[in-house]
């Protein structure tokens, strides 16, 4: 709804001491998604990533026998289609002329704040929907974390914990074991390393304790080391917009081409006026696509 004068009726005379509002400057530094998503640019309306798998193993050849024939196959096509996000604020010329506190009608800054926040929220949807078949990827027909991720040569592998458990040394160890045995695209064990943990902020303290404690005292061994702290180099990113669960979390691995944010158009402002009505508008638009081209880049725990 447009900003007419009585929407901000208390700003029409200079009587106020403090304007209380959300922060409008320096918001880029507060974004969470750049800490766990790879930032890329898009040059076209859509972009495709293609999975290709080689033969994996050689075969023993007996004397005089012909070499075994290998295979290269095409796997999943991951598509990134840029979506447009936009917002406008409209204001009457009277509201602009009469307002005594210009920070209350900082439309351009408020628009930018809304767009940046939208980018963070939309990026986080990739985590919130990571376990939902309703939001399966079109290429794999599986959500980001699934027990049935397809392999190009046939068969499937799981990037979803079969025994989900809350943050603990045992839980992380189990995840590390699973990721160490991830198959490559060729279908045989490739193995990756855990790199980062992403969770709703509800788990922040639990992860900080687990990642920050040097020791894990147990009966008869008060000096047992905390393997997570001493032998793994795990980052932790609490995700404030991850609101559909308090217990789920996702590990990121060192497999490339994982979760990414592809910008087609950076947030771009525009202004225009309708002189017939005496109205002005501040608009902002941006285009981007989010996704992942690599199920091996994550290990999900729906605890």
């Amino acid at each position, binding site marked *: 709804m447009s900003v007419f004068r009585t929407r901000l009726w208390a700003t029409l005379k200079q009587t106020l001491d403090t304007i209380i509002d959300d922060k409008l400057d320096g918001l880029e530094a507060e974004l969470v998604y750049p800490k766990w998503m790879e930032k890329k640019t898009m040059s076209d309306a859509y972009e495709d990533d293609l999975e290709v798998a080689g033969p994996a193993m050689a075969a023993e050849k007996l004397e005089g026998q012909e070499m075994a024939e290998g295979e290269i196959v095409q796997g999943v096509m991951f598509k990134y289609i840029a979506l447009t*996000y936009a917002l406008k604020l409209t204001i009457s010329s009277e509201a602009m002329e009469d307002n005594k506190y210009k920070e209350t009608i900082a439309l351009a800054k408020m628009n930018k704040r809304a767009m940046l926040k939208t980018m963070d929220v939309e990026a986080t949807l990739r985590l919130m929907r990571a376990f939902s078949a309703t939001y399966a990827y079109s290429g794999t027909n599986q959500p980001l974390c699934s027990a049935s991720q397809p392999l190009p040569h046939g068969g499937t592998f799981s990037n979803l914990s079969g025994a989900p458990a809350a943050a603990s040394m045992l839980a992380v160890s189990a995840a590390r074991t699973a990721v160490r045995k991830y198959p490559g695209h060729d279908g045989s064990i490739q193995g990756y390393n855990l790199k980062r943990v992403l969770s709703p902020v509800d788990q922040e303290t639990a992860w900080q304790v687990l990642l920050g404690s040097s020791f894990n005292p147990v009966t008869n061994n008060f000096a047992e080391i905390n393997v997570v702290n001493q032998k793994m180099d795990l980052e932790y990113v609490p995700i404030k917009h991850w609101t*559909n669960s308090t217990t789920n979390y996702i590990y990121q691995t060192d497999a490339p081409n994982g979760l990414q944010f592809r910008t087609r158009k950076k947030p771009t402002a525009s202004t225009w006026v309708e002189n017939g009505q005496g109205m002005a508008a501040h608009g902002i638009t941006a285009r981007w696509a989010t996704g992942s081209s690599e199920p091996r880049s994550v290990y999900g725990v729906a605890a």
Partner: protein
Amino acid sequence: MDNAARYGIRLHSLIGGGSMPKNFPNSAKFASAYQPAVNGGGNCTIGIGDPITGLASGMCALADGVEGAGGGLAVKGIITECLPQWSATEGTMVMRNPIQGGIVYGTNLSRQTQALYVRADVGVWEMDVVNASTSFDTIAEYQAADGANADHRLVYDSATLRANPKLDLATVATTAAQWRIQDISRSSLNMDVTGANFKVLVTCFEFQSAAI
């Protein structure tokens, strides 16, 4: 988790195109001493985002939703701006939103209570929903309601004394009702389909087009 609330019936876009809301040239007038009220709730104010209906007297009133004694009323428009209103306490006209109820201006038209509005039939509107059932907790269930009708409900807010209109999903049907559901709002404020304050886009089905 609940979705962030947004008050009232908000203009999403104009059906006929254009980027600015078109306030109807004729302002909405309210009778002297008019006191808006929510049936089953209490007296309230009326302001930006509230629906109005026209009366035979030429005056306007808050448009009841399904909670009204006579059910949902045909909607004339949605208030976008409140004009200065008489304040007997201050002895002058004052600017405020929302407009207070029970203001007596008698026959002095320079003290008359008025508001500006956008006609309900020209816009695609966004509304938060009242969702008291499990019939609407998936995207598919919302999509199945596209093209159906529903009434709004004034969910009286005793703290702010606002009418607080929301779309009542318990009234979704193919029979006549105040609003036609068009789609789920694509606002990123719509984070959780199972939470409160989920937002939908509607057009006006029971627009007050008949002479009164």
